[in-house]
């Protein structure tokens, strides 16, 4: 079974803090993704990566950055957290090829106060 794990289920941070969200997958997938999920808005793509050290902006990259130093790990960084970044963050991975499904982690619910 594919397993995508995220470092925290719940996280509370203060405005202005630097926040790291970690994601690890165990199936040697090339592609990894970060989404945020908000009620009534569905899932919106923040960043994705097709290979180690490669990254591409998604639909809502502002205020975020990413890092992929190893194939299995994809980190989302909030340089200076703001209250409008309070959300559920989902990581996903997928083999190369758009016909493959994405496998999702359990999510990290981040609250910025």
């Amino acid at each position, binding site marked *: 079974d594919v397993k995508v794990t995220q470092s925290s289920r719940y996280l509370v941070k203060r405005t202005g803090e630097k926040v790291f969200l970690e994601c690890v997958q165990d199936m040697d997938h090339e592609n990894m993704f970060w989404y945020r999920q908000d009620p009534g808005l569905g899932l*919106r793509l923040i960043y*994705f990566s097709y290979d180690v050290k490669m990254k591409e902006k998604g639909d809502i990259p502002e205020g975020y950055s990413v890092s992929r130093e190893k194939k299995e790990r994809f980190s989302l960084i909030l340089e200076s957290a703001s209250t409008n970044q309070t959300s559920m963050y*989902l990581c996903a991975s997928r083999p190369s090829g758009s016909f493959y499904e994405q496998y999702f982690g*359990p999510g990290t619910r981040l609250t910025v106060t």
Partner: protein
Amino acid sequence: AQSVSQHNHHVILSEAASLELGCNYSYGGTVNLFWYVQYPGQHLQLLLKYFSGDPLVKGIKGFEAEFIKSKFSFNLRKPSVQWSDTAEYFCAVTRGSQGNLIFGKGTKLSVKP
């Protein structure tokens, strides 16, 4: 820009009722189509997917979906819902050469016992 529309925000049904959730997409080219489900407190998981061939696709837990190219639709159906089907359902479509997913905003299904 490509988009995915899910017509219903919240559907409430009694057990044994039939279910149909609408999904329409805007892209006219070749698409791959997915339905994902998120049970309360759980991660997103794949219900079913369509890439080619028979437009009637069967998924897990008795769900099926029909791809109607002329209507740009991929509606999800189940003949008889159970209380355990209470969840949020997301339709998704691949876009572009990279094959990233565009998600609809989701439909919450509540099944009354």
